[in-house]
């Protein structure tokens, strides 16, 4: 056996100095040669750990083998058997914690770049106009409503449509895609790619109705009169704030608002687009997850002179993906680790001007297994700012839990659903994604959509709950 190169084939990227001046995608993706080279690193394990690490169970060794043979067409076919959104997953899945973590190479060197190869195969298919719509099973005459067009809803809908059921997605915003459209910035996930993959789901026969708020325009109970089953994938919407003094000052955003204005409403093109955003000179982002990195990097692209992440633990505990942290560092985002905001000070006319923070040290591990941050007494200091983005998480969207009798709700406002089926406590109603688990990742939501689709198909055939 030829010796395997220790490192992944690197992916070329936009230069950090150039990319902070535009919203274009940062990594360029593999060329055919690069992809083949990387694919050849795969050892084609008999018992592949990577597949077990993939929430949607893609036959990873098989698709990589096809890439190594330059049979790109069949590579993407294998992926699409399990994943209707490969160009998205190839870009935003936390592969290092999933498939790539289980790669046998990972024990001694860098794992196979499964995510990059998935992205390559999906982009190759689209760029060569070879997207094929798989044959559909004959119509079952059953109708299913999907609430929310984010990753969970799209996968659920795509799967059920292929099984011959009639599927209608209801989306509250004016564009489908959920967090893929409003949340993840263009430079990390171009909206044209999201639109391309949603188009594929539509071609599978899924109908999407936008600007329709289930829970308000119609309730789940009303949908159940027209549909044989309903899937709820409404995500984690309601943003958390820290409830510290001064948080109502102007210039303090939730991450959701900051990102919705930028991504969905294209505020970076104001006044060509009507939705404005405050283009702060000194921006601070509170939090350490992927959303915080997205906001901090967005701030730079909106022209900030300084963009600072304020995080209460250290770099090691940050929940963001390593790749996102590295990209942020390369772009010049500053980090104030072990730092907790305690109050905001404003100008006379109500704009935020300073954050008062305290320094922290790490104590014993807490329930999350991470070392608990403890305030260091008398360590107050202030950070001058004119824009703050609070990116500390969000709770499940409350609209459906509030308007659907018979649906059991957890103590965090989440919908209770069986992990193995997505079944809720209400007959005919399935749920999955962040509305069940609280804010998590795109791929976990997709996995939940897949599980629920399987159970829903079973239910539609048997009517057994």
């Amino acid at each position, binding site marked *: 056996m030829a010796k395997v190169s220790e490192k992944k084939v690197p992916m070329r990227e936009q230069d950090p100095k150039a990319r902070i001046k535009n919203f274009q995608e940062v990594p360029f993706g593999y060329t055919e040669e690069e992809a083949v080279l990387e694919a050849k690193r795969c050892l084609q394990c008999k018992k592949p750990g990577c597949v077990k690490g993939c929430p949607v169970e893609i036959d990873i060794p098989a698709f990589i083998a096809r890439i190594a043979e330059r049979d790109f067409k069949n590579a993407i076919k294998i992926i699409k058997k399990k994943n209707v959104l490969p160009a998205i997953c190839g870009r935003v899945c936390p592969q290092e914690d999933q498939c790539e973590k289980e790669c046998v190479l990972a024990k001694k060197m860098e794992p196979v770049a499964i995510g990059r190869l998935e992205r390559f195969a999906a982009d190759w298919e689209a760029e060569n106009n070879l997207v094929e719509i798989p044959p559909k099973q004959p119509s079952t005459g059953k109708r299913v409503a999907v609430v929310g067009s984010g990753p969970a809803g799209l996968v659920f809908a795509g799967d059920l449509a292929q099984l011959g059921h009639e599927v209608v997605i209801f989306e509250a915003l*004016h564009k489908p895609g959920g967090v893929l459209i409003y949340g993840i910035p263009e430079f990390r996930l171009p909206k044209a790619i999201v639109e391309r993959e949603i188009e594929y789901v539509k071609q599978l026969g899924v109908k999407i109705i936008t600007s329709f708020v289930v829970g308000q325009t119609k309730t789940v109970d009303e949908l159940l009169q027209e549909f044989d089953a309903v899937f709820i994938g409404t995500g984690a919407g*309601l943003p958390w*704030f820290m409830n510290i003094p001064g948080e109502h000052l102007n210039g303090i955003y939730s991450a959701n*608002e900051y990102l919705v204005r930028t991504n969905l409403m294209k505020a970076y093109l104001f006044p*060509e687009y009507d*939705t404005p955003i*405050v283009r702060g000179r000194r921006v601070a982002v509170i939090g350490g997850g992927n959303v915080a990195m997205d906001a901090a990097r967005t701030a730079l692209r909106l022209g900030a002179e300084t963009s600072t992440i304020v995080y209460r633990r250290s770099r090691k505990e940050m929940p963001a993906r390593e790749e996102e942290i590295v990209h942020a560092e390369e772009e010049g985002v500053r980090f104030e680790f072990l730092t907790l905001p305690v109050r905001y000070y404003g100008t006379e006319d*109500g704009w935020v001007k300073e954050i008062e923070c305290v320094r922290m040290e790490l104590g014993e591990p807490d329930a999350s297994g991470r070392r608990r941050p403890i305030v260091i007494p008398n360590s107050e200091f202030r950070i001058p700012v004119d824009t703050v983005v609070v990116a500390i998480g969000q709770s499940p969207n409350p*609209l459906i839990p509030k308007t659907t009798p018979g649906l059991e709700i957890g103590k965090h406002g989440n919908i209770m659903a069986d992990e193995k089926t997505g079944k809720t406590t209400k007959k005919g109603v399935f749920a999955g994604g962040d509305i069940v688990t609280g804010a998590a990742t795109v791929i976990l939501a997709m996995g939940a959509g897949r599980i629920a689709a399987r159970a829903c198909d079973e239910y539609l055939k048997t009517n057994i709950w």
Partner: protein
Amino acid sequence: MFKILSTKALAPNIKCFEFEAPYIAQKAQPGQFVVVRINETGERIPLTIADTKKDQGVVIIVFQEVGKTTKLLGTLKAGDYVLDLLGPLGKPSEIKYYGTVVCIGGGVGTPEIYPIARALKEIGNKVVTIIGARTKELLIMVEEMRSVSDELYITTDDGSYGTKGLVTDELKRLISQGIKIDKVFAVGPVIMMKAVSETTRPYNIPTVVSLNPIMLDATGMCGVCRVEVGGETKFACVDGPEFDGHQVNFDTLMMRLKTYLKEERVSLELFEKQSHKCCGGQ
């Protein structure tokens, strides 16, 4: 795409549009609102539902032309379309038997208080209405309000119609007469709702106000419409828009409404320049 069925000017810069929106019409209740997005580059703005014709699938919206988006909306005609109309949003008003209810509408708040007053009247409340405007020509929906009120009082700032003064002057007069008021609903400019709440506070008259913060998605996602109520952070789009006026921090609301003043001016100037161009640079 949502079709505009008819348009009507009620007063200078105040227009009434009928939209074809059967789902929303079917569902809408007093106190609720819609979000409108006119075109692809447009922003999402919340507008209160003034009335519906449920059997015809019609939603009626009264709006004041203040910024770019409302001015652009005002240029549309019957037969035109807006790209998105989302709703009904927010919680409906709590319509039940209170006894004597005073409904107060200020300016363009009048069409918003109208469906509330009508619903309160329909279930047997004694409805006393006070509507106010800066001047006579800005008074709207007077006859409609009269038709759903047991008593109607009108104020204008300049005295050109009704009593000269503010709606709160009329409210104070009613209170001083010793009439038992069981509930007050007030919709209008923030400063007016604040004044009404301060007027009723010493008498412990339960007072409901309908807040109008900046909104974006209006479905409980972005958090821009957060308001401080009783010391807690609430989201007007899903927890409101109506709140206990005695608990609302109006000062932070007023401050936050000014967030985009600068950008709003830029948008409006650009719009006016462009609309002058299309009528031959006049």
